[in-house]
């Protein structure tokens, strides 16, 4: 698979969010309802050709208290301009850290009006640098079973593991630093666990939250262990929002249709889109955490 093709996030007010992403992050407004199955939506573009799709929802699921976030690549020089615009609007910039070694130094986070957490990372240089977002670098989601998630993303979808958190003593040593108030870690990266055994007298322990990062092309997906049980979408619903679009070529697409069916993944499609759509074909699938995914072939 080649990389992230698009992200669909939920917002409560399309106009307000269009203005937010366009003004602050430099996304280009490409029009409404261009991508199928996103509800009432607005498509935003950036230099890499990837899309950010704002899907209107009365109660947007931004999961701000978890590790869920979207990361956009930017030139470090442009980040200062963004910081200024945020200050003008009194939007707080958080200097959290995360566990992924590739993000060392990319601690610049803020929230959109609906609570979707945005991270600005150092983008890869492109030949035609406009100011603002260069591309979608990575996106994070939650899952209630990280072993199953790894099996799905690595064995079934064929992505590679970039980094794991929660398997090594060094992760626990770093979590203790956080527990002692010495590290400003992003939501979702750490937890306080209450030991259940009577012997431990219900002691609270600072721990890293278990995470998995998988890579494909230039993109990365972060999967965080869900620390709460959340209502999944109805079993029959395979297409929904928020959603992550993963791009691949035709041959890989056909192979994945077969592989996903063989592995009993909840599927809808494949669907060939009308000629006017920027995406040629899509296969909608839910991952083990019931996260909506869309595997697509671009034009």
């Amino acid at each position, binding site marked *: 698979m080649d990389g992230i093709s698009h992200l669909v996030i939920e917002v409560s007010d399309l106009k307000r969010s269009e203005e937010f992403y366009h003004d602050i992050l430099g996304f280009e407004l490409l029009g409404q309802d261009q991508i199928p199955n996103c509800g009432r939506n607005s498509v935003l573009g950036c230099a890499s050709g990837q899309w950010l799709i704002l899907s209107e929802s009365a109660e947007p699921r931004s999961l701000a208290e978890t590790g869920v976030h979207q990361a956009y690549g930017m030139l470090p020089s442009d980040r200062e301009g963004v910081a200024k615009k945020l200050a003008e609007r009194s939007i707080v910039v958080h200097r959290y850290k995360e566990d992924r070694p590739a993000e060392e130094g990319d601690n610049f986070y803020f929230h959109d009006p609906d609570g979707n957490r945005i991270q600005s990372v150092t983008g890869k240089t492109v030949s035609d640098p406009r100011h603002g977002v260069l591309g979608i670098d990575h996106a994070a989601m939650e899952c*209630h*079973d*990280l*072993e199953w998630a790894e099996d799905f993303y690595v064995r079934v979808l064929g992505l590679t593991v970039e980094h*794991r958190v*929660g*398997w*090594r*003593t*060094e992760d*626990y*040593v770093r979590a*203790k630093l956080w527990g002692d108030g010495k590290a400003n870690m992003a939501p979702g990266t750490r*937890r306080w*666990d*209450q*030991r*259940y055994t009577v012997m431990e007298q219900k002691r609270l*322990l600072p*721990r890293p*939250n*278990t995470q998995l990062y998988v890579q494909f092309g230039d993109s990365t997906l972060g999967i965080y*262990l*869900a*620390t*709460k*049980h959340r209502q999944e979408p109805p079993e029959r619903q395979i297409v929904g929002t928020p959603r992550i679009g993963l791009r691949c070529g035709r041959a890989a697409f056909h192979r994945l249709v077969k592989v996903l069916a063989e592995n009993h993944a909840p599927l809808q499609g494949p669907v060939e889109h009308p000629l006017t759509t920027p995406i040629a074909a899509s296969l909608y699938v839910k991952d083990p955490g019931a996260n909506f995914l869309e595997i697509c072939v671009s034009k």
Partner: protein
Amino acid sequence: MADVEGLSHSAICVHDLREAEDFYCNVLGARLGNRVNFKTDDAIRGRSVHGSVILEDYLLALMVPRDFMPMPADDEHRGAHGFRHAFRVPRERFGEIVSSLRTHGVGFAGPTDHPEKSPFGQSIYFKDPSGNFLEILWRRDENVDFRKPYITGVG
């Protein structure tokens, strides 16, 4: 009196669960048991962080400690205070084990010959990547049919 009826399992601490699993499964031929702390329910219930490997009929739990354990010296293979886990192989496969350790680049001491009267034949001593001491030996009494427990499930 406790009157215990058998050994259930033992637990050792490892610094890197995945590295330990690779070692016990690929070098020692164990099979993977369950891991705990990779599901939401484990996090909510505050369970300890561990995995497990099964060596034939032996369940070895691999705990991930909150802090680094002091590591023995590189050339120390026999155990600082004598504590180690020892596993047996048939005599005819002992040489194979020695070569296998060499192939995987695992440092070891031995093989050592035990006295004629000892139930042990020969031993080889080595460590896992987290410094836990291990021993593999063949026994002179290997043809005696001891009652072997078998693993029905893991926690």
